[in-house]
């Protein structure tokens, strides 16, 4: 361990002019991996750098981008939100049932989003007022949402074909390429983009954002500084829940139906994307844009595996796991080299206090 830190220290001192923060490295690594996957895919399978490939990547991953953005908030505070997949399912099933009952579509769309917000509120209340750990609080929200979705319907419910809500997913031509090589976007993609921009602004330009990072660094210090720790925590889970609701809206309009088992395991996909994107699971450091890169790493990976055709589908999860492992190891190496000095300082402080202690007594 000590030799490792020495090597790392030499590395850092050998680059005196390099001012990128150490915690940015995993995010850079994610972007590099994304580029490698894209370029490698292009070289091996071809047709990666094509408008229609990019379009389908955007269409297929818009919902996961939104989920990952919400998850980034939760993880930045050192928490977690396991409920997003289940909340998405419940929100979209109930929204579609409302549509079928003849409720006007804007109302149904808003209710899908607000159901997400409500579940975020539930988790947030449990966490802040009853001191339940985020893991358990969001786990219970997950069970609750999944169960409620199943009570509503265990069959897939279809969005009525003539419903204007489906227009959210209809493709808008941007660049009309030769044959079917078009760059298309949809309102859903614009929603995802807006979510990313708003999240970026919130995290990097507002007091709320600074408090989020502060909570992840040290909750106690944040409170001592007079920042509204509890309020911020509730807001974070509200954001995460709302994102889950929005992702539900986006996904439902994309596939045209909703089911109680939609989104099983998507919370793990979102967590994986956030971790690959360079956000520390312990909180306090990370980037929302990194999470977006993480989503696309996973998306491109799936794309390449289907292009290859020889890799069994089961191997996808193994490969995802392996990539996740590599990134966590990378983060570990970085926090080891960066954190060692901190812990050394803490240790020497403890020693000082121990020296003081006999004098006091």
């Amino acid at each position, binding site marked *: 361990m000590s030799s490792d830190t020495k090597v790392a220290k030499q590395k850092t001192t050998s680059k005196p002019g390099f001012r990128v923060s150490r915690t940015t490295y995993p995010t850079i690594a994610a972007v590099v991996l994304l580029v490698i996957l894209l370029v490698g895919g292009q070289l091996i399978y071809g047709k990666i750098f094509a408008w229609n490939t990019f379009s389908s990547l955007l269409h297929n991953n818009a919902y996961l981008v939104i989920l990952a953005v919400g998850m980034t908030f939760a993880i930045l505070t050192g928490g977690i939100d396991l409920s997003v997949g*289940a909340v998405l399912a419940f929100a979209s099933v109930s929204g579609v049932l409302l549509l079928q009952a003849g409720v006007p579509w804007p109302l149904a769309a808003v209710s899908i989003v607000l159901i997400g917000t409500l579940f975020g509120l539930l988790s947030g209340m449990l966490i802040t*007022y009853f001191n339940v750990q985020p893991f358990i609080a969001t*786990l219970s929200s997950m*069970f609750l949402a999944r169960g409620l979705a*199943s*009570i509503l319907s265990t069959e897939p419910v279809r969005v009525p074909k003539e419903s204007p809500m489906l227009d959210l997913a209809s493709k808008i031509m941007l660049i009309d390429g030769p044959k079917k090589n078009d760059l298309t976007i949809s309102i859903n993609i614009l929603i995802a983009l807006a979510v990313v921009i708003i999240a970026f602004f919130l995290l990097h330009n507002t007091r709320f954002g600074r408090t989020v990072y502060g909570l992840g660094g040290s909750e106690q210090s944040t409170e001592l500084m007079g920042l509204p720790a509890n309020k911020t925590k509730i807001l974070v889970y509200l954001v995460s829940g709302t994102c889950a609701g929005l992702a539900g809206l986006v996904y439902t309009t994309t596939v045209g139906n909703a089911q109680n088992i939609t989104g099983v*395991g998507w919370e793990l996909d979102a967590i994986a994307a956030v971790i690959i994107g360079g956000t520390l699971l312990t909180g306090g450091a990370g980037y929302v844009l990194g999470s977006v890169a993480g989503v696309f790493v996973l998306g491109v990976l799936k794309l390449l595996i289907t292009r290859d055709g020889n890799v069994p589908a*089961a191997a996808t*999860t193994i490969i995802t796991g*392996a990539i996740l492992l590599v990134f966590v190891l990378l983060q570990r190496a970085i926090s080891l080299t960066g954190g060692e000095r901190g812990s050394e300082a803490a240790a020497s402080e403890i020693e000082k206090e121990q020296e003081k202690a006999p004098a006091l007594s």
Partner: protein
Amino acid sequence: MKKLLRNQLFWASLVLIVLVAVVLLNNQSASIGFSNGKLTGPIIDLFIFVPPILMIAVGMTLVIATSGIDLSVGSVMAVAGAVSMQFLVNSANPDTPGAALIAVLLALVVGLACGMFSGFLVSVIKLQPFITTLIMMLAGRGIANMITGGKNAAGNSPAFNWISQGRVLGFPVGFLLALAILLIVVLLVRKTALGMSIEAVGINPRAAEMAGIRSGRILFMVYALSGLLAAVAGVFSVAYIGTVEVSSSGTGSGMEMDAILAVVIGGTSLAGGKFNLAGTTLGAFIITALNQVVVYLGVSSAAVPAFKALVIIFICILQSDRIHGWFSRPDLGQSDDKKSADSDKAKVVAA
């Protein structure tokens, strides 16, 4: 009386009694019957279905006591089940006790290996348990798929299935085996220093290290044991239905959540440092009873999660300081807390 109200096991037992009562009231057959040399009835059903969850919950308790978490148990169950079933499918004579024994041993070895892998990452590389076992959870499901070639392998071995379906004197074998394993684990952690070491690591790994406990070794051992017990659970559950289902909603899916729930209901704090295997056993029974209650009440089994959620939320709120404050006068409650904390310290010192 106040002490009783503050005791988490008291509340948990009450919940279990209510659940069992609901089952008995809604079930026409005798609560414990006897037919064809088998004990039957809703209470015996409880003993048939509890072993898998009990096994993983015991492993989970020890992991949580070190302030970790093991999300991979469900996937490890699937991997272990897949290995044993695939072995039986390929063996020439699956019904011999020898083949069944080898299948079980293979499952245990593979489960142990999975646990050791997580344990290595947590104790040596010092990764966070949550993410380490999340990786194992993701990869495990894929590995189970690869082992059986994506099919649900059916072992066709009555000898193997006896582990879970068989009866001794009319009583389910699976539960007796689970009970024996539980006793071994309890003796291991309570009659040796292992339990105290686990708690010490859970409270403060650094301090434990200074006190001469090899934190790394303890962590490694705990995750390895959790993997091994998950493999036992995997054997129990594939032996009960005779096949392994490798899909993401198949063998062991969602079991990690049930196990965590059982542990939390049993009063072990997720913050680590203290554990209560008796509570976990009670928790495992509650989860099993909960699944049954919903069936007897005629609610679709898909709605089970909502009931579980309400139970967790109820228990979490009961356990929170805010509610404890309502039960007792604030000043009294605080002094009680201090007292119990002091006596805990004294226990640790004495041990």
